[in-house]
């Protein structure tokens, strides 16, 4: 018996040893094609685990591998929650894939250090567009956003190629809508939306199950609430500050706040908060504690009639929901609305948004030429058509016909700029937290606009000052980096006068450096105003 066990044990160990050796040999010598050529592996990592993307990238990879039999494209999907940590480990450890989705966790420092600038390829036609109407057009001009989704404002280089557009929509379960209202007619105005939610309130499914009018979560609800609030500050924004404001600029809005041009008692702010309160009452209780996934479950399980989310969730919802649904823009109050119309200019323009799902190439890539080639293939018109047809996501290349499922999400350029938010969630993190932490005073049972304003008023400007100080530090750091980069470009362009890209970059970075300086001085000015305001308020 012992002999048998030993034989089995030794056999298993031998097997492990052989597998280990073959793995080492494979890594050492690489896989080969039938013709004996070494297979080049291009690894591509991203966090888009929503439905559609992985299938589309597989289909694109298959097409590419057919064209290039010596290349294997391997997709590495990483959950968004761990993407940042995973990415840092890979980049610092020197084991990063060839192509990586850039955005969120990829800071300027990491972009500059670990990614290849793509400005050269952005300025030249994409060879994979040969034979199409985009044949002679530089890559950046073949994309709906002018490749801004891949442009870094601080480094002044393109570091990524975006392959999909996106927009925000209100999704409605059509079966439920019909059951509740007797028709599939969608709400076209804000009042129709509210009327519909009231109908839902009085409706019960067989068995008495209650339906949530709008599924909310800490992810979805702020999208809706910010949009509604911004409809009430549209007119105000145009008149704020010095001439030239047609779009929200956080620094300018903050200065206007310090100057008393608007505040928590302004009619526009009160009206925006009223709107939020009215709509939030139609979401399930405790929605700000709920995750994005939970809200999606409410909708796909037919427990909620509506949900507000981005086009990126459409395919996942399609795959999981067993009912037809419609997607429409959020119905905002029109300027003729009796209660909320006086501050409104009109529907928001969706122009100016940037495309997403942006891929960049890492400096670590051992096959950067092939990786660049695959990136160009990804951004080609024909490939983008395959992308939208397979993923049902919006395309990013001009002239590509969106898949029928993606059409309701097409960005609509007509319209006005949205107004300013109560607080800019990106630029004013502490103030945003103050507002979020006190939302229950506004939307909770027994809450009111007055209660909410009273709760945030004492700390609103002081938190703003904290945010301004943090931003000031970030601006200083950016200026310090840019100073060195500017010095380097000045030396390079002086020593190589015919280096056109260096000359052009020196030109751009000079302009950007001055813009940064202006921002720095203006921030100092804002901080002084905030300190003065806090002093006055405390008297």
């Amino acid at each position, binding site marked *: 018996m012992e002999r048998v066990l030993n034989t089995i044990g030794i056999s298993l160990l031998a097997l492990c040893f052989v597998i*280990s050796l073959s793995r080492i040999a494979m*890594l050492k010598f690489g896989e080969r094609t039938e013709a004996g050529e070494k297979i080049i592996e291009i690894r591509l990592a991203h966090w888009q685990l929503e439905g559609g993307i992985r299938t589309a990238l597989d289909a694109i990879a298959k097409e590419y591998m057919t064209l290039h039999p010596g290349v294997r494209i391997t997709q590495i999907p990483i959950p968004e929650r761990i993407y940042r940590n995973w990415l840092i480990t890979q980049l610092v450890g*020197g084991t990063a894939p060839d192509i990586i989705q850039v955005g969120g966790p990829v800071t300027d420092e990491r972009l500059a250090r670990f990614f290849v600038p793509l400005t050269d390829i952005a300025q030249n036609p994409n060879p994979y567009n040969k034979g199409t109407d985009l044949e002679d057009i530089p890559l950046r001009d073949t994309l709906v956003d002018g490749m801004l989704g891949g442009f870094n404002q601080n480094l002044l280089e393109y570091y990524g190629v975006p392959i999909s557009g996106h927009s925000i929509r209100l999704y409605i379960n059509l079966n439920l809508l019909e059951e509740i209202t007797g028709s599939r007619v969608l709400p076209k105005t804000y009042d129709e939306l509210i009327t519909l939610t009231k109908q839902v309130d009085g409706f019960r499914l067989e068995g008495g199950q209650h339906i949530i009018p709008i599924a909310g979560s800490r992810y979805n609800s702020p999208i809706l609430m910010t949009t509604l609030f911004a409809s009430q500050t549209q007119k105000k924004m145009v008149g704020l500050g010095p001439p030239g404001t047609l779009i929200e600029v956080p620094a300018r809005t903050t200065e206007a706040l310090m100057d008393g041009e608007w505040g928590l008692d302004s009619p526009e702010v009160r009206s925006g908060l009223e709107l939020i309160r009215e709509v939030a009452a139609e979401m399930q209780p405790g929605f700000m504690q709920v995750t994005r996934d939970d809200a999606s479950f409410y909708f796909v399980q037919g427990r909620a009639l509506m949900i507000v989310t981005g086009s990126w969730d459409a395919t996942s919802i399609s795959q999981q929901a067993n009912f037809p649904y419609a997607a429409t823009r959020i119905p905002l109050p029109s300027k003729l609305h009796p209660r909320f119309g006086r501050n409104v200019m009109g529907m928001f323009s969706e122009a100016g948004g940037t495309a997403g799902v942006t891929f960049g190439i890492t400096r670590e890539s051992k096959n950067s030429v092939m990786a660049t080639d695959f990136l160009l293939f990804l951004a080609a018109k024909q490939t983008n058509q395959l992308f939208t047809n397979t993923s049902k996501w919006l395309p990013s290349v001009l002239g590509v016909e969106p898949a029928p499922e993606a059409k309701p999400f097409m960005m609509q350029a007509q319209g006005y700029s949205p107004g300013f938010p109560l607080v800019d969630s990106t630029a004013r993190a502490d103030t945003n937290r103050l507002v979020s932490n006190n939302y229950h005073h506004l939307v909770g049972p027994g809450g009111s606009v007055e209660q909410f304003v009273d709760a945030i008023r004492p700390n609103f400007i002081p938190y703003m000052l904290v945010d301004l100080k943090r931003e000031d530090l970030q601006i200083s750091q950016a200026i310090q980096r840019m100073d060195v980069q500017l010095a380097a470009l000045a030396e390079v362009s002086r020593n190589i006068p015919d280096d056109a890209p260096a000359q052009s970059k020196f030109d751009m970075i000079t302009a950007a450096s001055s813009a940064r300086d202006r921002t720095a001085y203006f921030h100092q000015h804002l901080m002084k105003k905030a300190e003065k305001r806090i002093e006055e308020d405390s008297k």
Partner: protein
Amino acid sequence: MLNLSLNFASLVPHRGKRNATFPLWLPHHNFSGSLRRGGTMILCAAVMGLAQGAARAQGEDTANAPASISQPDVLESWQKATVFLFDEANQNFAKAAASSDGEEARANRLGEGVTLLTVQPRSEGNLRKAETIFEEVISRNPKDATGLAARMHLARLYEFHVKPKAPDKAKAIYEGLLTDGVGDPLAELAASRLALLELYATSSPDEMNEAARKLAAHGTKLQTSIGRRELYSNLGLTLNQLRGDKRLAMEYLIAAEAEGLPMQQLDAPLLITIGALAGDLGDKETAKKYFSLFTSRYKRDARRYSVVEKLEAMGAATDSGTTPPPSAPEAQPAQQTLPQS
């Protein structure tokens, strides 16, 4: 207990010099001889895999590490700094400065000083060292290109890098560069830097307008388009921001625009600001001109519809092909039902 110590790196091919020595404690008395050998083999196989991984990573590290340059070229080091490889550039400059002499050493010292401004970790010591280096480079010749660059960087060090900031020292250097740095693209930026320092130091709109007029006079002496553009941009945008004289602000912005802004993110708001200022001043023709420039240059911009509306209100002809239908902002787009998958 058996202390089994193996140098696994010697068992696998590797490109680096790092040794992977793993002490292993194997409790042999609990196993039969063959199983013990088998266990050892499993560990060998597993650790070889690890060692291979380590060797690979090490090999990659070596392959991707900055190339060791015995005599780094000044330009090559600057090129590293253009792509934010500041630490590497600094090491190269320092190494080259130590092993070269004359002008080459001076150029490397300048690079060393500049890159010290961002070398990690940032420290007061580094900033002081950078200050000393700039002063040393300037002392050799304050008026050649290297000397002018050192003066510029010293001013920036006082303006933005040291704590507390020393704006007066920066101002004095910029003023010197206004006369000595004419024609040098980097040194000519002194005028625009000085503009911000001086405008923000004023205490009333009148004082600010007067300061702007004096600063604008330097524009005629500047020989580079970049120098003029940045000076006029800073003057116009700051006057507008701080509610200075609208006409002055508009004139400076028009002058800046004439030099050409290299980025949409700066050009688009500049055109709108000129149009808005002109509108406020009742100068319809100027307003129309710059709003029209905006609509012709930027087809996809969230501000476009508002600008078209302003143009139409001023009676300007707009391209009907790009003008949204008047009812568009009020109308809801057609809703579409998504096919069920």
